[in-house]
């Protein structure tokens, strides 16, 4: 559905994207995660030709993103926290305006989505709250049953109630759609995403399925029979090493139940006990982000 190859984007002297490559297979839901300024929004805007790449290649729905036409846009739903909707029109007027542009617009679905999201049809868009406006953007992105739904920070600034309504509206219609979502609200993403791509400083650190990712990461707590010290030869997959008394904790980025004990004993002596705990996407993300920041600090 989307193939990104060696994508670069420069703003003046700043490289916002630096050779980014990833893929969104059909039917998947890829979560694009990364810290602020990592390049998520730039990537998304490049995909649908809002921004032109400096170098590299994006193929979306079978065409080069630079040549994306109304035909492809009629199959892409897009919701962004920073979307400028025409404030002078009412919700109903804007939906009426959009309808003729989409050959597959389903009026019944539109009514159903608007009802589910409790959108006030006669209210002007400029008078809607931020949350309502986001729901409005979602309501404009679903009735034509897009093949690809792109969500750029859709939960930003939404209170939990609106967030739930938004997610319910989204999940109810997701069906066979391919979804690309970027968000800081990793808890929400976890329930939607099948794959995760982690971007940092305009580069892709990894892309893998949600299952593999949560399987690969574990928080490990090693209790020793003496005062603990961080092992000098610790594998690079052991992140956020911390020592407290006789306890050594770290995040294992290549966890395997079968060989964990052996790997720990290779690097630590006097091991009394090893505990492992699965990690949420949020904790994996924060661990990776901190670890990368620390790595950059060492290099600079």
């Amino acid at each position, binding site marked *: 559905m989307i193939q990104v190859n060696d994508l670069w984007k420069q703003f003046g002297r700043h490289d916002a994207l630096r050779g980014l490559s990833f893929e969104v297979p059909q039917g998947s839901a890829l979560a694009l995660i990364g810290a602020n300024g990592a390049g998520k929004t730039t990537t998304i*805007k490049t995909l*649908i030709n*809002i*921004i*032109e790449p400096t170098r590299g290649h994006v193929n979306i729905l079978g065409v080069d993103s630079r040549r994306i*036409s*109304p*035909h492809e*846009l*009629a199959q*892409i739903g*897009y919701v*962004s926290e*920073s*979307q*400028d*909707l*025409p404030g*002078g*029109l009412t919700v109903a*007027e804007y939906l009426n*305006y*959009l309808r*003729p*542009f*989409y050959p597959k617009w389903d009026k019944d679905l539109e009514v159903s989505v608007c009802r589910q999201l409790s959108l006030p049809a006669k209210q002007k868009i400029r008078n809607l709250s931020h949350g309502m406006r986001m729901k409005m*953007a979602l309501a*404009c992105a679903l009735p034509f049953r897009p093949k690809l739904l792109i969500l750029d920070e859709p939960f930003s600034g939404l209170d939990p109630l609106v967030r739930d309504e938004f997610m319910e509206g989204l999940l109810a219609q997701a069906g066979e759609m391919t979804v690309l979502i970027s968000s800081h609200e990793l808890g929400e993403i976890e329930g939607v995403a099948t794959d995760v791509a982690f971007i940092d400083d305009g580069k892709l650190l990894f892309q893998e399925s949600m299952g593999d990712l949560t399987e690969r990461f574990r928080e490990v707590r090693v209790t020793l029979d003496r005062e603990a010290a961080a092992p000098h030869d610790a594998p690079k997959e052991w992140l956020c090493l911390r020592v407290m008394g006789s306890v050594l904790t770290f995040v294992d980025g290549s966890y395997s139940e079968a060989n964990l004990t052996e790997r720990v004993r290779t690097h630590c002596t006097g091991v009394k006990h090893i505990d492992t705990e699965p990690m949420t996407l949020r904790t994996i993300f924060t661990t990776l982000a901190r670890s990368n920041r620390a790595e950059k600090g060492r290099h600079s």
Partner: protein
Amino acid sequence: MIWHIFKKDFKLLWPYAAVLAVLQLSYSAMQLLNPAGDISESGLDDGPHGVLQQLLLAAVLFGGSFLIASLVHQDAIPGTRQDWLVRPIPRMSLLLSKILSAVLLIHVPMLASDLLFGLVARFPLGTSLVYAISRNILLLMVLSMPLLAFSSLTKNLTEAVAGVFAMAVGMVMFGFITQALHWPLKMVYETTYNTGLHWVPQFAGYVFAFASALAVLGIQYFRRKTLTARVTTVVASLIFVALTFFLPWETASAVEEHFSRQPGASSAVSFSFDPTAGRIHRTPNRPSAIPVDWYLPLRVDGIAPDAALRVDRFSTRALFASGESMLLSIDTNADFLQNGTGRLHVGFEPLTGETAKSPLNDPRVKEQVMQIAIEMSATLLRRTAVADMTTLDGQVQINGTGCIHRQWAWYSDWDDDSRLDVTLSCAPVLNPVCYSLTLVNPPAPYVSIPVLKCPGDYKPYVGRLIPGASSITAVAQLYDPSGNVRYPENTEGLFQSKAFINVYEPLEHFTKTIVIPNIRFKDWTADPTPRGPAPQ
């Protein structure tokens, strides 16, 4: 989809469009209250009507620009947050819908108010229609389209205002520079100004502005390359300035010659220096501090009885025995209604203040005997209509001219001049290019000499930007039978004279150079001997 997008914009912007339509109608109504008409000629000195008219015109211009910018900004091109960017909206439909909106929200009401003005001002329906349609097509091409293009470079009104401010600063600086370099620029700056050829740089500017607007709109709507479009706009603006302000006279003259209606018509026309005509006389009692026009007498032959000649521009150049040459003067518009000797204005005498810098003040020029080369670009005109006014009193339609007689007056001043002026209000499209006023059997002791007047230019197309009728003034100079200036005394009798307006159209443009072999410039300043009685 074009109509669909238009409907959305209309829903959002109709209140502004309604206000603009009211402003346009008010302006047309004000024009009818100010029958002197042409705002470009009457200026801002006409009392409350004139001031209000100017304010309304400014409001229409400002309101139209605001509406166009708002139309474009509904679906702005620069930026990355606009919702339309992710919608399957064909770019061509979007662009055409914006043009359609400009036509329907701005030009249709403007066309209606122009048409209404023409009809209420008693111009025929056909003439009023041609005026309204041609004016709005021209405005769309040279004003609305460039404004659409300019607006497409900006995201919102704040950016647009900043852009306008930057352009205004550029224009003011340009004004200062051209004023400071007046004489050095005279050879190249606005060479066609106030001549019949002024349409050439204007038309070149119109065509270029329209083409540039299309190019910028194309770059923006189909490529969304705002930086490229902005650079294109700046470069296009500089070329536009070069075309409209710095088009060489020779180029304009060649274009005019190319468009001549009857090539070869001027082959019989010849020029010669006529020293027998003598010098110009100073007007009696004229204060010596006031300069007098400095003329060279020039004889013209070969003008047919139904023709007239207009020397659009002429330059005089001194050719010294040493081989050195010096440009002495450039001037425009010397008119000849028939064969005979006329005057070519070269300067003023005495030359004081700013004019003291003129090359005519060079002692070599004043004192030495030398050759003078006069280069002339001239246009042969043919009389196409003679309109009978029957009387100079009252407001009447004058057949064959597209004009309505509005008012008359007589003037005299310190120059060698006493004249009767008849002011006409002419249809805004078909007004005569050149015309003269002939008084038939004026009461004794007056002898009336018609003067050729050409207030417009020789443009071969209809359409004008300035709204309203053209105000033109036909002139007859008044002399007594001995050829002396005669200042009017029995004005009532004069105004009862039968009068004709002769209308002329350009036939052929041509260039000629004559060389006067031995002349001393000093010998051709004004004769201090007065001619005729003092003005009343």
